[in-house]
């Protein structure tokens, strides 16, 4: 079945440290992949997307993600997190249709 998996429910990172959020997908081809961020009480904001080409994509707010076909992964990274990055992060994919399928999300906590 087509699915998006985010293995980490909750991650805590010190401010200024690097961050990597994991995302894996299950699909027989390469899906269109997205990362969204959701701050408390807010809707989801698009951070970045991957369709094809360069496997390292840059997004807003200093985030980047790397697509690895061999691992069916699309991990989100940031070299140095800020307190304002505390939020819920969702990986999502189009699996050959018009519907975005979301992972269960990873909650990011930043400690001073």
């Amino acid at each position: 079945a087509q699915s998006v998996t985010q293995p980490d429910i909750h991650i805590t990172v010190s401010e200024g440290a690097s961050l990597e959020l994991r995302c894996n997908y299950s699909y027989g081809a390469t899906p269109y992949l997205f990362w969204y961020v959701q701050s408390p009480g807010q809707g989801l904001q698009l951070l970045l997307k991957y369709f094809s080409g360069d496997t390292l994509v840059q997004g807003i707010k200093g985030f980047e993600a790397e697509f690895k076909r061999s691992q069916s992964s699309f991990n989100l990274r940031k070299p140095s997190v800020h307190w304002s990055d505390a939020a819920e992060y969702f990986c999502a994919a189009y699996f050959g249709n018009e519907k975005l399928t979301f992972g269960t999300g990873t909650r990011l906590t930043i400690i001073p």
Partner: protein
Amino acid sequence: EAGVAQSPRYKIIEKRQSVAFWCNPISGHATLYWYQQILGQGPKLLIQFQNNGVVDDSQLPKDRFSAERLKGVDSTLKIQPAKLEDSAVYLCASRLGDRLHGYTFGSGTRLTVV
């Protein structure tokens, strides 16, 4: 560019009551989605409109949920009667053009059924 507008922001109702949510997408966005986000879970698609036609409502509980998008602009999602398990955030999103464009989400309506 104005964002996706949703109202109300919060709603508390008793079970078996009815409730309606409203969404005004970004002007010119032909595709509109309603998602349900239960606490601790990712958003789940309820229904997708293309202009004023339904594209996908396979996960909409049609015995109690209904949605319409009159004139291909605003949309309303209704629940009647509500159950406790309907407590969730209801997100509306719209999209310009094809899948190469990401969705733009509204801030959502948080529904609590007591």
